[in-house]
């Protein structure tokens, strides 16, 4: 801990031993203000959201979380169906995206010939740069009809014994479409972070393993995976955070239905999508306040997810003795 003490000491008096110059002072002031500004902004947002949600919180309390109704006419609101929709879409996307992303990362670091790596890496990162509304539009016009016509019936006939792959109804826009769209959106996040992690595996370790006569797969399993495990977990959680918070693309393809259905081929809704869809749709003060309540739940989720990701990174780097 001594080294840590030294570093904090240095930050407290950054210019000790040097003549204080005006330029440095200004720089310090401007940068400090910027940092402070971000803190104030987060605080203000949280405060406004809590203030907005107050009416709904005092009316419904925690019962809000267990009721799956959104009825502006009778002024009754609950978040259960959006919580369920958020959970199944984001975890569903994570389950689909993780193996593919790790496959991409391994291919790009260990298996692909060098002349392929550059272009494919660039392409994967480009996928992350596509605006979500564009993915959503493509989701409505191309992906949803394709899944509905060619994929969902096959999934139902093969995996129909699992309730989530129930009979494909008539709705092109459904929970499963949203899962696939989210998968595409979080795939590049997990893939590019995992790629960097696999790249950071010391080559002496890898060469040592190969020198001991392991196959490539054994080397990956024995050296790369344990080395990168914590980081990959953090990447997954960051992807999960993105999936939980995504609103527009999901709103475009999920079908905006309030209610809980086990069958993924039925329409549903998520916290983010509901806020995005009905912020102009609240007819009553209680309805508007309930939207803030949804936003508050979403805010808490994303903060928790981010903290967990940071925690995992810190623990795994400590375990490996990497100074970060």
């Amino acid at each position: 801990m001594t080294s840590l003490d030294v570093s904090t000491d240095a930050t407290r008096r950054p210019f000790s031993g040097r003549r204080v110059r005006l330029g440095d002072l200004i720089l310090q002031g401007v940068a400090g203000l910027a940092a402070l500004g971000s803190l104030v902004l987060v605080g203000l947002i949280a405060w406004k959201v809590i203030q907005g949600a107050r009416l709904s919180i005092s009316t419904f309390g925690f019962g809000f979380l267990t009721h799956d109704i959104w009825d502006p006419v009778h002024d009754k609101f609950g978040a259960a169906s959006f919580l369920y929709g958020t959970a199944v879409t984001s975890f569903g996307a994570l389950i689909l995206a993780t193996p593919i992303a790790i496959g991409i990362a391994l291919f790009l670091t260990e298996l692909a010939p060098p002349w392929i790596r550059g272009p494919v890496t660039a392409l994967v990162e480009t996928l992350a740069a596509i605006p979500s509304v564009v993915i959503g539009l493509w989701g409505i016009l191309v992906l949803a009809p394709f899944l509905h016509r060619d994929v969902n019936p096959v999934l139902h006939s093969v995996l129909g014994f699992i309730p989530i792959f129930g009979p494909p109804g008539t709705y092109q826009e459904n929970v499963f479409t949203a899962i696939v769209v989210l998968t595409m959106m979080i795939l590049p996040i997990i893939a590019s972070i995992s790629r960097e992690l696999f790249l950071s595996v010391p080559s002496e370790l890898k060469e040592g393993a190969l020198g001991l006569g392991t196959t490539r797969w054994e080397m990956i399993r024995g050296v790369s995976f344990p080395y990168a495990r914590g980081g990959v977990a953090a990447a997954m959680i960051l992807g999960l955070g993105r999936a939980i918070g995504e609103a527009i693309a999901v709103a475009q393809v999920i079908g905006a239905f309030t209610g809980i259905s086990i069958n993924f081929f039925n329409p549903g809704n998520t916290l983010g999508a509901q806020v995005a869809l009905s912020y102009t749709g609240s007819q009553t003060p209680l309805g508007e306040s309930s939207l803030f309540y949804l936003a508050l739940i979403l805010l808490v989720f994303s903060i928790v997810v981010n903290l967990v990701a940071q925690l995992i990174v810190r623990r795994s780097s400590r375990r490996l003795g990497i100074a970060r």
Partner: protein
Amino acid sequence: MPRNGKFVRIALGLAAVGMVASLAVITAGTASAKTSSGTVNGAGSTFVAPLVNKWMGPVQSQLGITLNYNPNGSTGGVQAITTHEADFGASDAPLSQFNPTCTTCVQIPWALAATAVIYNVGHGSLQHLKMTGPVLAQIYLGKITKWNAPAIKKLNKGKNLPSTSITVVHRSDGSGTTFNFTDYLSHVSHTWKSQVGTGTSVNWPTGEGEGHSSGVAGTVKSTDGAIGYVDVDYAVVNHLGIMVMKNRAGNFVQPRAAGIKAAAALDTHPAKDGSLSIVNPPASHKYRNAYPICTYTYVDVQRASGANTANIKRLISWAVTKGQSYGPPIIFEPLPKAVVTFDKKQIKKIHS
């Protein structure tokens, strides 16, 4: 890494250029908004948007006013005028339906049209399907789920209805069209009235939600077996099937000029707040040709409209008189004389 540094410098340079450019545009924009007085900005109903779009050209050439309209739904329109974000808000639902609402607004009925029940079944071979209010309510309650259900078959004898499932489509945003549609269903179905009710957004028992009229029309167009509701013009433009609705007199009526005109006669003397209701006219001889899902649609303006008052008043006076002649090609029926007279009085209440 020198190569990296160069990239960063280029990227930063581009970002800086972008920021300067957008700043320039913003300042130019505010400058022009200040200098040219002939701009009126509105927002709201997507139902009335086809008519407002028709008005833009003539308003520019005849009045010298640039009319901007953001079709973000009726609830969005009422919000925009309540917060003074726009010069006018357009809504198909009367102001009394909103809470919070604009208490300092004048409500002016400025257009008249019908909500069409649209469908896509049988790949265009099934034209002019017949429908009644109670059966429509059953479909939107999720009780009737197949196109060849006995209740639909009975209304359409001789038509080869397939066993396709019905895909129910509704609006997901706050919508005056939804208000008109659910108001009608509440009139014809007790179950609907007690279980769901009337509103600009409701707790739908079934179906999928789409944003704006264009979203509903687009989804119905691309989904075999779909049913939805939009302003007639969206149905015509998208070549969608339009239900022929049974009215209380027992006649099956299309949402066309004659049907709307007959329904409009039900209420031509607005209440004190300017609202009118012409849904589901009674069975009397006078309304034998009335289409049952018609609505007046309103423009809402702040009584104290500030610096732009003169232009707003000129625009709306034009809209309720000359503007009406642009309606019929897109199935907006001209306002009855009594309503225009009322509107002129309402417009006088607007001042700077």
